[in-house]
Every structure is written in C-alpha cells, then in structure tokens.
C-alpha cells in the first residue's frame, strides 16, 4: 500500500481529460490477445488506479497461468474462494488424466468445474470491464482468447423493514429495500404467475443503474408497455441515483405541481397495481417502485382500504378526500369570509371572531399568511430531526408558540384553529407528494382570497380544477374514473365497494383482460346480502 505522498505524486503526474470512455482501439486488441500478460496490462491501464481492484493470480489445475480479477468492494469473497478458486486449483476427478485443448478450456471450466450460478464466456473488452465494475469476477486464462465472466456480486444491504412512509394497520409489514434483486423477489413472491414479465437494462452512462420494468402479460395494455419502454429508452443521462430521477424524465407534464406517477415502498401495493394492468418501474438502489399510469384517486387510497370492511373503508376514504380539500381551501375561505363577507357568518359567531381579532395589528390576509408560513417552517424543521427531538420541538412550536402568539395579540385564536386544521388535514393524505402539492397551492389561493374575496377563491379553484382535468398520465386522464365518468370505476374511487362487487379491472387502463372475477363469485355474497345467509343442509 502506498503512502498519501506517493498517491499525490502519481495523481499530479497523471493526465485528467474530460472523456466519457477511456476505451481505445489499442486496448481492445490487447484484451482480445491470448497472452495473459497483455490482458492484465490492458485491464490495469483502465482500472489500475482504483485501489480496490484485486488481481489474484494462480494456476488452473496447477498448470495453466490464470488470473481472477474483481473489485473487492462489490463481490462476495467467500463465494470466490469456495466456488472459483478452490475448484480451479484442485482438478476434479472426472477430468483426471484427460487432455484438454487450450481452446476448449473455458467451456470445460464452465461445465465441469466452476460452482457459481451465473457464468459465461466473453470476448468484448467493454463488456468485460463493465462486468468487473458490476461485481462479476473475470477469469483470464493464458493462451485462451475467451475470458470467463462469473457472477459474484454482493452489495451490502439493510434488512427488510416496515415502510416508514406508508404504514398500515392491517397488511403486510414488508417494504422494498435498496437492492433490486431483493425487491424483485418480494414482488415475484406475491405474483407467482408465469405471466409476470420483468425487463432489466441499465440507464445512466456513469452509474449504469439497472432499471426494471415489470408488467403482467395478458392483462396490461400493450400500448402502455410500449409507451413506457419508449420513454425509458429516450433517457440519456450520466446518473440515475433514485427512482425519482426516472420519474422526472418520463412524466407527461413536467411543469405541473401534481405528481403524475405514483411511487410506493410497498411490494403488496405494487403487486396490486400490476394485477390491475399497470406497469411498475424499479431502480437499483432505490426503495421506491414507480407505478404508471397514475390517477389522482390513487393518492388518497391505501392498502388498508382493501383489507378492512368496505363500509368503514369507504367512510375513511371520504374523510381523507375531505381532509385533502380542507387543506387546500380552508385558509382561503376564512380570509375571504372575514375580510369581505362577514355577513355570511351567524351573528353570534361573527361577534366572537371579531372579539378574537380585536387588537390584532394585521389584516386577516397577512395574519393567516404569517401563521401558515411559520407552520410550513415548523413542518420542514421537524421532518428531518430525530424522532425524540422532533416530538419535543413540535410541542414547543405548536402549543407554546401558538398559545403565546394569541395572548401576545399577534394573531386571533380562530386563525390558529384554521391553520392547525389545514395542517392536520394535509397529513391525513397517504401520499406525501400529492398532499404537498395541494398544501403549496393554498398560498396563491390565500392571495386571491385576500384581494378578491370569494370571487378570487372561486377563480383560483376553477384554475386548479381545470389544470387537474387537463392532466394525463401515460394517456389516462388524471381525474379518471370521475371524469370521464365510469360507474364501475366510481365503485372503487370515491367509495370502496365490496371486492366481489368490483368484478372488472379499471376500464381507464384499457386492460387486455377486463374481468378479474368470474360472474358467479358475486352471487353468493349477493344472495347472503339480500336473501339472508344461505346454508346447505347436512345430508
């Protein structure tokens, strides 16, 4: 190992050019040559500057010079030891006393000797280098033109935990992690169907992040897969760090505040979406799956809705929708009623409001704005704090500051109530990104309310709703199934009908296979519902 001084000297002496790839025709030839020394030299010229490159030289069966090359940081060392080095150094009994041609050696090694699950022959220089970077071990053999690429990747990962952002009362406790293979196994474990298709390919010139597109053949609309693949294929960037990067490249309306692609940490939610005829996109190193197409109704639905009784679930769903609307319009309505139309309030209440506002130095509009902004600051401040401190801070912020502000005559108590209602309302929405869009849109609404009263609020609301109506996610109208209306869809958007009552997949997705249940499935619950429980007499 060299000292920092040496490292500094070599770095200073080296050339630093802004190039995408250092591959030159010369090195490609070198890598294709049968001589081991040539190949090693070529690989060193590419990867030698990284100190975690390991070149392990040994003799195959004690005779032929060879080298195993891998990146120490991304491989399973025990696997390399047990499955590659050990079998290669001891000749297996079935090969004893056999004469093996040097050209056939890679084949023989793959078939008779090596114990790894993934292995293939490779001659292309670029693929060899990329596979080393991805955690494969490359086996170079003196005299053989072909090299072997052996699957030894191992990345450190955390255990599967309950998703922090989407907790459920009743439902699976597993969430996606950062490793694509684990995520795919969570998904395949739920969808044991031979129609589940998973297409994997890297995106990102530098990160080469593997992106997986999952869908169920025979359910999904082929045009949708077509569109998704075509949009993915158009991404040409150097880094995909998270699924959120992909989302921004493929969404329909980048200038809209509303999310048009749902992201979820839950494998069960992803599986349910695939069954409905949607497409899921997953990215290595991101615990989020992107679900396309997305309609607005998805943002106030949770898995709990489907595991609990349908009446309760329908009610809760409506509560969430109301909370969402509340978080958007309550402060604006308050400002416009207080400053322009106080006659709308019942007289007693109007007197109480006026009493509370006595001594407040600002107009209602400024007052609400100040409190709303400080509430946003408080939310942003607590969101990144450790949980213990966060709890304490929010108590200080909400209770103490709120109470003190009122008694200091800084704002009226009713304003604090309104702002608190708004904030709580927006946290009742399961999807953080959709809630935040509406939370932010209430500021322009407060401005409109402060300048034009109810008329301004109405203009603002019409603008927002028109924008929502004009959005599309992969060709599906954003407000579907409300507009364009479909009775079958409303059964599972505003309300949550009993599962046996929703026999079809959502029609706005145009699935190839429309029905999800046989007709007779609904018969027995229907009979029990309308004719009383039916019981077969025991013979």
């Amino acid at each position, binding site marked *: 190992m060299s000292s920092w001084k040496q490292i500094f000297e070599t770095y200073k002496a080296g050339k630093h050019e802004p190039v995408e790839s250092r591959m030159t025709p010369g090195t490609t030839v070198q890598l294709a040559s049968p001589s081991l020394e040539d190949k090693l030299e070529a690989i060193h010229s590419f990867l030698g500057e990284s100190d975690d490159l390991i070149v392990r030289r040994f003799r195959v069966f004690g005779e032929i010079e060879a080298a195993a090359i891998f990146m120490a940081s991304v491989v399973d060392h025990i696997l390399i030891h047990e499955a590659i080095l050990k079998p290669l150094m001891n000749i297996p009994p079935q090969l004893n006393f056999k004469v093996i041609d040097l050209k056939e050696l890679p084949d023989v090694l793959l078939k008779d000797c090596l114990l790894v699950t993934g292995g293939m022959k490779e001659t292309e220089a670029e693929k060899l280098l990329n596979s080393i970077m991805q955690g494969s071990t490359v086996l170079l053999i003196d005299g053989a033109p072909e090299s072997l690429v052996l699957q030894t990747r191992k990345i450190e990962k955390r255990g599967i935990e309950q998703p922090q952002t989407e907790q459920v009362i009743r439902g699976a406790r597993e969430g996606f992690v950062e490793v694509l293979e684990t995520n795919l196994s969570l998904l395949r474990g739920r969808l044991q169907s031979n129609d589940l298709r998973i297409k994997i390919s890297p995106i990102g010139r530098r990160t080469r992040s593997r992106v997986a597109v999952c869908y169920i053949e025979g359910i999904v609309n082929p045009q949708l897969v077509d*569109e998704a693949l075509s949009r993915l294929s158009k991404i040409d960037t150097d880094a995909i760090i998270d699924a959120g990067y992909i989302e921004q490249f493929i969404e329909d309306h980048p200038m809209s505040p509303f999310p048009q692609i749902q992201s979820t940490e839950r494998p069960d939610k992803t599986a349910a979406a695939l069954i409905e005829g949607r497409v899921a996109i997953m990215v290595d190193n991101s615990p989020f799956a992107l679900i396309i197409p997305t309609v607005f109704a998805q943002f106030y639905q949770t898995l709990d809705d489907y595991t609990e009784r349908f009446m309760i679930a329908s009610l809760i769903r409506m509560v969430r929708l109301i909370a969402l609307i509340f978080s958007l319009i309550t402060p604006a309505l308050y400002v416009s009623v207080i400053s322009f*139309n106080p006659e709308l309030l*019942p007289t007693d209440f109007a007197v109480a409001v006026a009493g509370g506002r006595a001594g407040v130095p600002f107009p209602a509009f400024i007052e609400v704005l100040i409190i709303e902004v400080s509430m946003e600051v408080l939310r942003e401040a607590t969101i990144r704090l450790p949980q213990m401190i966060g709890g304490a801070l929010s108590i200080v912020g909400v209770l103490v500051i709120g109470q003190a502000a009122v008694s200091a005559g800084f704002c009226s108590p009713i304003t604090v109530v309104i702002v608190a209602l708004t904030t709580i309302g927006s946290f009742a929405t399961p999807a953080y990104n959709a809630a935040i869009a509406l939370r932010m849109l209430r500021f322009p609404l407060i401005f409109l309310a402060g300048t034009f009263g109810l*008329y301004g609020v109405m203009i603002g609301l019409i603008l927002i709703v028109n924008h929502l*109506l004009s959005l599309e996610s992969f*060709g599906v109208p954003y407000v579907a199934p409300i507009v364009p209306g479909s009775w079958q869809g409303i059964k599972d958007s505003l309300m949550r009908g009993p599962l046996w009552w929703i026999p079809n997949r959502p029609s706005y997705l145009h699935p190839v296979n429309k029905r999800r249940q046989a007709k007779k499935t609904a018969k027995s619950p229907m009979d029990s519902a309308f004719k009383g429980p039916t019981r077969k007499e025991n013979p």
Partner: protein
Amino acid sequence: MNRSTPTGQITPLQTQAIVISSIVGIGVLTFPTYMAQAADSGGPLVTLLGIVFSCISLIPLSLVGRRFPKENIVVYSGKLIGKWPTLLFCFTLILMFLLVTGGIVRETAEAISLIVLPRTPPEITAIMLLSLTALSARRNIIKFSYIHTFYLPFILVPGLIILIGSLRNADYLNLLPFTGIHPKNVISGALTIMGLFQVSFILAMVIPHMSKPQKALNCSFWSIACAGALYLFIVTASTAVFGAEEMKEMVYPTLELARSSSISVSGLQRVDGIFIIVWVLTVFTTLISTYYISLYLIGRIFDLQDHRMLATFLIPFVFIVSLIPQDFFQLYDSMNLISIVGLCLTFGYPLLLYIISFIQKGVRGNETTG
C-alpha cells in the same frame, strides 16, 4: 397515448353536460325580471314557451349534424352552400359569439362589483375572468368536455338546494293567474329565453367528436329539458316568493331569492355567498362555451393545428368589447339586440343547411334509385 385530438370520444352524457352547463349561465340572475315584465304572473308560462321554442330551434342543427357525423360545420357547410357563403356565415357567428362573450364578461363584472366587491373596479374583475377563460379554452375539445362534465353537479346540486330553501317564503297565490294579468310581450319574453339558450349552438362543435353522433337529437332534447327545468324552477320560485309586481323593480331577483333562502343546517347566516360561488361557476362554463365556439370556428376555417395562441390573442379584443357599453341599460339593450340577431343565425343557418342537404339528398337519392 395519442396526444392529438381524437375523434369520436365524447359520450352522450358528456354532450348533455356541455349543453346544460353552457345554457345555465349569466341569465339566471336577471331573467325572472324580464319574464315578469313580459307577462307578470304568467312568467313561468312564457319561460315554458321559450324552452319549447329553443328545443325546436335545436332540431335542424342536430339533424344536419347527424347527417354529417364525421365532419365539422365549416366543412359540410362548404359542401352544401359553397365556400364564400360559409365564410360569411361563420365570420358573423364568430363575431357574434365574441360580442356575446364580451357582454357576459361585462355583465358579470358589473354584478360582482355591485354584489360582493363594491370597491374593486369592474375592469379588474373582468380581466381575471377573461384570463381564466383564455387559459381554460386552450385545451382540445375532449378536455373541454371534461371541464363541463366535472362542473355540472357543482352547478345543479347547490343551485337546487338554495332554490328549495327559498320556497318556505313562497306564497303560491302570487302565481295566479297562470296566464298573467296583462300578457303584453309574450313573444318577446319567449325570445329572451331563446336568446339565453342559444349557447346550445355549442352542440355543432361537439357532434363531430361524439362517439354516437346519431344520438345528438336525443341529447339536445334532454339537455334543453334539464336546463329548462332549472330555469322554470327559478322563475316559478321567484314569482311565488316575490310576486310579479315586486319583481319588475328588481335587478337581480334570483340573488334576492338566494338571500331570502335560509338552510338551517348549513351553519351559515345567509347562503347568498354560496350562491355567488355557484354563479361564478355557471358564468365560467357559459363563457368558456361562447369563447370556444369562436375559437373552434376560426380554427376550422384556417385549419389550425390547435388554437392555443388564438385563445390568448383574442382576449384583448373581447376585453375592449366588454368596455364599450356606457352603462347597465346600454349593456342590456345591446345584449338583447345581439341575441335577437344571434337567434336568426343560430337557428336560421342550420335550418338553411338542413333544407339544402335535404334537397341534395333527395336529388341524389332519386339519381341512385332512378
């Protein structure tokens, strides 16, 4: 997945929503006064007559649209009566609907500044309404139909609740005699109603994009019936509550009706604030329809890909139009004049087209059989 305007996607229900929410508009605020002036307590009857007339006046449009289900009005009119007469008719229609748009904007701005924002200049209110319309009218006709479908329940349901709430003050003796005491201007009253209903001309724009154009006639009947029922309810309720003589003196009888309405469970002292909200919505849906007719016709005449730029550039023109009338009375007089002229166009033009297409088809039919 296709982002260009798809054809044949507007369902009959959406068509009805478009026509209903286009018809229910600015007029609901003032028309009971005109009805009272036309035939005092016979107002509801005059309204009914106007509704029947409007229903009949939509027939030629639906029939001729049904005959050319895949073509827009500019194309088939060009085939039937030639290029230049079509251009003449279309430009008159465009001008008329732009004038109507300007008039509605002015009326709304005046009403807003009279009722809710007394200290805001009406021009500012008008500019806001116009920018809202311009932004919303940029979309293609499918999105246009979504807008109407979405807002329809928000127009009808609160409107009906407010009306029902006002009925507790009703004195049904006010409605008698049904024929009115001095029915002087029955025809002109019915014409006023027809004038309010002429935004239903939007049907001509919708038919080529319908999934089932043969249902156009059916749709037009139902939507006129539905909107007509609302109008009839409003005029009956306001006549019953106020009496015809009192109503003649009012500027906004429907607003007064909403003020007198009280719904105990709403927790609000007065519901006229809600009424103004609903009313802004109805004005918006009417405004976007009248403006869209102009944009659509210009777009088809010049064969434009989309009318986004047009929607923005025509706004100053509409704004200037809205500034022309000196006062309220001039505004209402000119609006009446425009609507009478408009009636001749929106009824006469499709009728002409239908007659000619009928004759042509007859001739052609004879040729093929003979």
